[in-house]
């Protein structure tokens, strides 16, 4: 459908980031608007509700000083779209796709609607390709596969973004195909983005990466579109160019705050803790853009990062995210304090697509091995809690052993410092810890698996 542009003189009102128009004929839901005011550069906006009596335009730039009466609003008839193309790689752009690196705006290979379209579920391929990140807590226990969306649940002051950077730098795939990286900073600080960028500057990985940066000081509403610019480019690279794309999105909490702001300006009935009732659906339109096509070669893998307000995993933002994503990597303040690096609490962490990625691609015993590490560690953590009350001496011998195991597990398996571990090294590290326990404590390891391990170990130098 082609809609001609229409210009209206004067808006009926404004509230926060919203502008209200009366008497708009043929307004199109989602179309781009341009708002002009004397003495200010034109601002861009988008129709988020269309009505003959009232149309609502969400303005992307700062609305301070915007006088509705004098505004000239043009409804362009065009859907919100972003420039996509291979020439965006190597570039640093704003949250709205404008160049920040001093170079001219990218020409691109075309424009694509930011909204994106849902992948037809029957055209999806089940994600199953193992990505070795070099991090034991992930590769061994919460395995990442290509096409997955696996968020990092961080807390303020916890190294969520740093962990994502490590994953990006360390990611290896079985056939060695490199990833293109699409990074989108959503309301993140200059320091954080600089740190992230520094890892790339001057490397050949930079040539395979594109950065969309909406910083803390940038307009809040731009945060709604920034991840969509990034995902639109990611989908282009993956599904039109056949590339494997790793999308890092930080910080989703800032994104949700922006949504809440709009909801409040629209005087919507808020849902839990003031967030819009459609937060789940809205987040799904971002996260579900990860995946692999049945007949394609490319893939979109997402590593979103969010900050749990008050470290509370039941807060609506981590909660709804966990309900959409295929697992989560949860960081722990306690472990961070104990200088466990990376401070991953593996118990609440999960990768739902792990089963497809392990086994043949890692080790046939991987599942049992992981189950046993989990079981022993969980028992040790329980024992630690009991010991805090009754003292270690009050524990039965097996619990005492589990407690000692848990301590070593955190120090020697989860903690790895800056070193990168191959999956073989990760598995070996885990086995060594398990072997510190007597056989009867290892109830998740069947005899056959145990025997194989013994043989393999004896064969090893």
């Amino acid at each position: 459908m082609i809609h001609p542009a229409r210009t209206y003189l004067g808006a009926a009102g404004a509230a926060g980031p919203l502008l209200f128009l009366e008497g708009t004929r043929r307004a199109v839901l989602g179309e781009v608007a341009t708002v002009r005011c004397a003495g200010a550069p034109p601002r861009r906006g988008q129709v988020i509700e269309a009505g003959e009596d009232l149309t609502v335009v969400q303005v992307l730039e700062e609305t301070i000083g915007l006088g509705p009466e004098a505004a000239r609003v043009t409804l362009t008839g065009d859907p919100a779209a972003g420039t996509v193309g291979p020439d965006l790689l190597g570039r640093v752009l704003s949250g709205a796709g404008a160049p920040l690196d001093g170079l001219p705006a990218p020409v691109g290979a075309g424009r694509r609607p930011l909204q994106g379209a849902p992948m037809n579920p029957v055209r999806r391929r089940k994600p199953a390709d193992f990505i070795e990140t070099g991090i034991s807590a992930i590769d061994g226990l919460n395995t990442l596969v290509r096409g997955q969306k696996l968020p990092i649940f961080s807390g303020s002051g916890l190294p969520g973004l740093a962990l994502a950077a490590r994953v990006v730098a360390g990611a290896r795939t079985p056939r060695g195909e490199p990833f293109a990286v699409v990074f989108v900073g959503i309301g993140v600080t200059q320091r954080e983005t600089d740190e992230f960028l520094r890892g790339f500057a001057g490397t050949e990985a930079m040539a395979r990466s594109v950065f969309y940066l909406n910083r803390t000081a940038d307009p809040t509403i731009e945060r709604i579109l920034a991840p969509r610019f990034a995902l639109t480019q990611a989908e282009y690279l993956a599904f039109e160019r056949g590339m494997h794309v790793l999308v890092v999105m930080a910080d989703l909490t800032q994104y949700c705050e922006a949504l809440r702001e709009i909801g409040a300006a629209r005087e919507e009935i808020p849902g839990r803790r003031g967030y819009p009732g459609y937060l789940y659906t809205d987040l799904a339109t971002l996260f579900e853009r990860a995946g692999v096509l049945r007949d394609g070669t490319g893939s979109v893998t997402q590593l979103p990062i969010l900050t749990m307000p008050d470290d509370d995993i039941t807060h609506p933002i981590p909660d709804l995210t966990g309900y959409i994503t295929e697992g989560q990597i949860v960081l722990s303040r306690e472990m961070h304090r104990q200088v466990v690096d990376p401070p991953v609490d593996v118990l609440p962490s999960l990768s739902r697509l792990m089963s497809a990625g392990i086994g043949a691609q890692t080790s046939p015993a991987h599942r049992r091995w992981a189950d046993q590490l989990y079981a022993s560690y969980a028992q040790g953590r329980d024992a630690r809690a009991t010991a805090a009350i009754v003292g270690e001496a009050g524990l039965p011998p097996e619990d005492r052993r589990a407690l000692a195991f848990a301590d070593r597990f955190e120090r020697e398996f989860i903690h790895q410092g800056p070193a990168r571990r191959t999956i073989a090294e990760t598995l070996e590290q885990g086995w060594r810890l398990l072997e510190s326990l007597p056989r009867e404590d290892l109830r998740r390891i069947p005899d056959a698996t145990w025997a194989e391990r013994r043989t393999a170990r004896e064969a090893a130098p």
Partner: protein
Amino acid sequence: MTDIPRVVRIAGALTEVAPLPGAALHEIVRVGDRGLLGEVIRVRGQTATVQVFEETIGLALEEPVRVTGAPLEVDLGPGLLGSVLDGIGRPLERLAALQGDFLAAGADAPTLDPDRRWPFTPSLQAGADVGPGDVLGTVPDRNGEHRILVPPGVSGRLAELKAGDWTVLDPVGRLEDGTELRLAHRWPVRVPRPVAAWRTGARPFVTGQRVFDFLFPVAEGGSVAVPGGFGTGKTVIEQSLAKYAEADIVVYVGCGERGNEMADVLTEFPELVDPRTGRTLMDRAVLVVNTSNMPVAAREASVYLGLTIAEYYRDQGFRVALMADSLSRWAEALREIGSRLREMPGEEGYPTGLGSRLGKMCERAGRALVPGRPEREGAVTFISALSPPGGDLSEPVTQAAGRVVAALWALDAGLAHQRQFPAVDWETSWSLQAEGVAPWFAQHVGEDWPALRREVLTLLQRDRELREVAGLVGPDALEDADRLVLESARLARECLLGQSAYDAADASSPLAKTRAMAALLVRMLEGGRAALAAGRELGALDLTRARRALVALRDGPPAQFEETVAAARAEVEASLRQAGGAT
């Protein structure tokens, strides 16, 4: 020009249309130039509010709206099995053929393939008097045989019924009053299909999951809610039930959940072969898929679509398992739409009618004498996952569901974090039908089944009390008899109730195996008690040996079940004799 109904407002999935005098609630309309499918959900004077089942971005004010006069309906007939439909009944493969890898609004695709021919064998002849539900004949379908029914509300004398190769659109027969009969008929999804009489079932819905079959069984035709926080295992349970529960037909509704999970189902279901029939699970399944990023109004409709298809197979006399993952997403869709209507909300923003809608939905499950001849019974067992915010079961949807279901299988994040699966919290889970189906288990599996169940429940209860004490004084301070309880309960949790979906040998547990494991555990507990009573010490009891026997039974190859049971029993008896606990 002004009389043509047009779009006057667009807000998300909602549009307002005027003038639309005389619009009926739940009437289907075609919205805009692309004819998006919409449903009237409110009428005020000349203005109707329409929820649109497709993406509304790109829709413009003043685009015309066409009324259809019909409610949201689905075609029911041969060819449903093996298909993957979106929330409003369009086959996704067909949409992919039309649109490619990504979905776009405005496509039309009939639920049933209009060109496919089915060899029809009538079982009645001209002159017969027929009524609703009577079996007119059969066509072969992927599950074996598809029964062609006289649609509800239709009766009269058969003037003609023709064998032959027909499409679902061809008339295959006629009543004397001229009514044409076809292989398929349409049915409004929001209206329950009538039954002749509801039956209370004494027969359990056998799931293959020990914790459900043994502790919280439901009757065939029961409805179950499975609430649990994210990652607690709801989807794995729904999929395990689809794969292994005893049912003729499986209807799986992916309601507002993940696309990759559906890809998983679509890879696995066609590969899972039933050794008894040689047919795959996909041959007897219908999938309804409306993922979280697909239009929210269609998500709301998807559950009704699933229910209607399930009822249709029930009416043919089949036992149908209907899975909905997740009903919370359905409720949220209602809330999203309700809030755009600016209706006065009830608890937590959900519409005030949530409880009654949920109740009506669950009432569509059940075992029934279905209408028509030959006389037959069918059942729809309805298992719905619930996704409570923060995993908190006191929230409105879980509470409302708890009032209408026959059983609640509550999942616990703590257990899931310890990878104790299925993470069923047996303290908060319940079944109203456990007593009702107990005689069936006693008769068909083993007389001791009800007694074993009581023993294990008591053990778990006692374990809970003791663990509280142990948390205060330390487990080592407990007496031997109590530590025996703790040890046995741990075994019960780990082996008897624990079951890995990824373990080929144990993903499904036949009832005989479930009983054998329970019996072994109880024998060990009783033998241990006897030994302690005879003055032995707990340390002298070789629990490790008994435990190994139980693990061997759990992990043993299903083909050698008899041998494994015998060996495990011998092991346990030997270890008890050694400890002086044998009697």
